[in-house]
Structure formats: C-alpha cells, structure tokens
C-alpha cells in the first residue's frame, strides 16, 4: 500500500542543512536589524518631538499593514536602485526586507514594555534629581525587559517562520531547497515532512532562551 521512500531525506540531508543554514542566517541578521530599528522607532514614538513621533507611527502603520512578501519584493526589486544600496546581494535584500518588516512589530513590543512601567517610577527618579537618560537606562528599561521578553520571543518565532517567504524572491533557504528537491525527486511528502520537522525543532528550541530570560528578569519575591 504505502510506497514511502524515507531514505530520500537522508540522501538530501546535506542540501537540507545548507538551506537550514541560510534560514538561520536570514533569521539572525534580520532579528538584529529589527531589534535595533525597533528600539529606535520605539524611542522616537515616545519622544517629545512630534515629527519623530509622526514618522515612527507612520512606519509602524505602513509595515504592519502590508504583507512581508510585498516588503521583500520591494527589497529585492527596488532597494538596489535607492542611493547607497547598489551593493545589495539578493540574500542581503532578503535580510533587509525581513528586518524592516519585523522592526514595526519590535517597535510596538518595546514601546508597550516601556509604557508598562509604573509612572511612579518616573516620578520617584525625577524627584531624586536623576536625568532622564540615567533613569531610562537604570530604572525604566530594566523593568520593561520583564514585560518585553515573552512577546519579543514569540514574535521572533514568527520571524523565523517568515524567513520562508524569502522563497518568493528566489532565495534557496530551507523552504526553497525543499521545493527544489521535491521537484527533482518527486518525493514531496517525505521532503516537506522533513522540512516541517526541522522548522518545528528550530521553533521549539527558541522557547529555551525565552524561559531562561524570563527567569533571569523575574522580580525577586
């Protein structure tokens, strides 16, 4: 009845791992980009200078409103024509597109975290004569991390999965290589199952740093 050919996964293993490597590279670089950009956007949003707030709100509205696929198409087909970006390789365009898209979400997560800190903490710091720069760094940010970590990490799992969309601009990451292999071996069931298992392992592993960080930043009671 069944005519499985699971060894095809073994024969394709090296290529699958090549794809996984690119998936992880896309993930790591776009995560760093998204986090830095998200932090800047969150601080802009909370600034007292209204044009900065306006730009940040507009950025978040636009990139939360369009599919990551469309952002990737932009990064791939258009970004290279922008001044100073002619050196972009397709892989770098993928990282840029994913990072720019995810930054909108990271900005909202960071902002929500900073806003979650009791206003009394700002007041107490002000009353003690601390500068805003000092108490943001020492008092507000450390307390906001506790709130930020869980949503930041689950959002990062979404980013890891979103790297698969890079297949749409021709990158041969895990999903792309799986599609190619399945076309050439006519074994889609086995290969897509293998890819699903690899993704499951990666997304499940991301829970480990989350639990560590949550413990690290828990308040002592």
């Amino acid at each position, binding site marked *: 009845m069944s005519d499985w050919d699971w060894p095809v996964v073994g024969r394709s293993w090296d290529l699958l791992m090549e794809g996984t490597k690119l998936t992880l590279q896309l993930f790591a670089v776009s995560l760093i980009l998204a986090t830095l950009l998200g932090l800047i956007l969150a601080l802009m949003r909370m600034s007292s200078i209204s044009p900065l707030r306006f730009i940040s709100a507009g950025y978040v509205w636009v990139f939360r409103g369009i599919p990551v696929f469309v952002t990737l198409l932009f990064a791939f087909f258009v970004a290279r024509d922008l001044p100073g970006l002619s050196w972009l390789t397709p892989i770098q365009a993928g990282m840029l597109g994913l990072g720019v898209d995810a930054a909108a979400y990271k900005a909202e997560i960071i902002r929500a975290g900073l806003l979650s800190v*009791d206003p009394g*903490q700002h*007041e107490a710091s002000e*009353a*003690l004569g*601390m500068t805003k720069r*000092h108490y943001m760094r020492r008092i507000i940010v450390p*307390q906001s991390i506790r709130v930020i970590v869980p949503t930041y990490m689950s959002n990062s799992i979404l980013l890891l999965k979103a790297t698969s969309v890079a297949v749409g601009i021709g990158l041969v990451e895990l999903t792309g290589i799986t599609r190619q292999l399945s076309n050439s071996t006519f074994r889609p069931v086995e290969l897509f199952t293998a890819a699903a298992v690899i993704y499951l392992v990666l997304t499940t592993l991301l829970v480990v740093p989350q639990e560590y960080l949550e413990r690290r930043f828990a*308040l002592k009671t």
Partner: protein
Amino acid sequence: MALVNVSGLRKSFGKTDVLKGVDFQVERGEVISIIGPSGSGKTTMLRCVNLLERPTGGRIEVDSRVLCEEQANGSMTFADKAAIREAREHIGMVFQRFNLFPHMTAVENVIEAPIAVKNVPKPEATARAHELLEAVGLGHKGDSYPMQLSGGQQQRVAIARALAMDPTLMLFDEVTSAVDPELAGEILLVMKRLAEQGMTMLVVTHEMGFAAEVADRVLFIDHGRIVEQGPAADVLQNPSHERTKAFLHAVLDRAPMEAEVEEAAEGLVDDLLVRPERIGGDDDGS
C-alpha cells in the same frame, strides 16, 4: 527668609481648577501638616513644590531658587531642566505608593541617586545607606528586594532613599495611606524622629494624631484654597471656619457616625428579608 515661598499658586487640569490661588511660607525646621478632604487639592499642592506638577499660575521659590514664576502677561516661566534637577536634589519626596525600584535591593535603592546625581563614590554611598537603613530600623534588610518587604518596611526604605540625598526639605504625600493600619505607626515614628532632628517637612496626611503631636502648623485646604491655617493646637481643637469644623468632625468623631449606621441598618432589616409570600399579601404588617 523662609525656605519655601509659594504665592498665588494655581493649577488646572483641562477645565478643572484644582488649585485656585494658594499662598504659604515654610520656615527652616518647621513641620507643616496639610489636611483636607480628598479631592481638595492638597496632594497637587505638594507635588507642585518640586514641580512634579507644573503650576498654571503663581510663583514657587525653594531655598532661594525660583522654580517657576508667573509673568505680568500671565504666562509661566520655569527654571530650566538642569536647575530643576539641582533643586530636586535638595527636596526629598516620599510617595503614597512607595515607588521603590523593584529590581534593586534596599541598599541599591538608597545609593542609586547619590552615585548618579551627586557623584558620591560607591563605598561611601553604601556605608551611608547602611547607616540610614539602620536609622529607620531596617539595618538587617539591606539586601532585601522591595517585594520581600512589608508596606511599612518599604515606606521606611523610601524615606531612607530620600534622606540619602541630604535634603533640606522633605515632602510626604499620604505616606501611610497604602499600608495596613497596624504598620502606619512605624512610619509615623520615623517621621516624628526626623522632625525632632530639625528637618523641614511638608506632610499631606489623614493622620490627625500626627498633625496634633508633631506638626508646628496645620494648613486646612478645601476646594483648592487654604481655608484655615495656624498652630496645630488652634486649628485642630478650635477651628474657626465652618468647613474645617465639618471636616474635623467627620474625621475625628467616628462614634456618632457608627450610631447613625446602626440606626439606618435597623430600618433596613425588614426590607432585606422580603419574602415572596409577603409581597402582595395582607397589609397589616405596616
């Protein structure tokens, strides 16, 4: 020259006028209790003294520093950020809800500002923090985190934190309201000792006992104005204004109120036990 000089102080939130022109002075070493019904503006007035609230009118001067001043055309000028910070170094504040930094131990809470703001070397700041915690009766709790302490203990750490900046003036904003009644005493005791040592204190409070025993002067505020002020004994025992009398009556004379409640409750007993069979039945019960 008075330490604190407030004149014509006004504050509105949107269309609500919370302070409608308040004048008072505080001399060095003086302890003033500010009393009044909730919503009277007493907390807002206290928070204006270190500019946590920005007044909409009037003038505030603390220790010869002008923090804000109303111009002839009605606009407000405020001291610049650095000057406000400089002034706040000398004005300690203790909040109703403690506002300790929850991710820092008691000692870390106390040393943070001296190190950051006054560049005190860490060993020195730490030694002083231990002394201050000792003085508020928490010498053994230096390594505890706020959430490991009772409300009364947290508030005493908050007092130590404010004192670590060597303030010339201390502001207390209903500091016993958020703690269990049996723990209020330990906070009031620390405040009383502080008063005895000559600290200038502005104390917004509901604790009439503290006002009577410790305060040199009492300000009674209602509807955004100082209605009556004077030596504690005069205002509390011999109020001249009707509103002060009514307020003190409500706060101090609990006994008649309880009697009233009992009386009212008696009238309710029958109504609460209305049974279906009684409704629409015979009227002879009334």
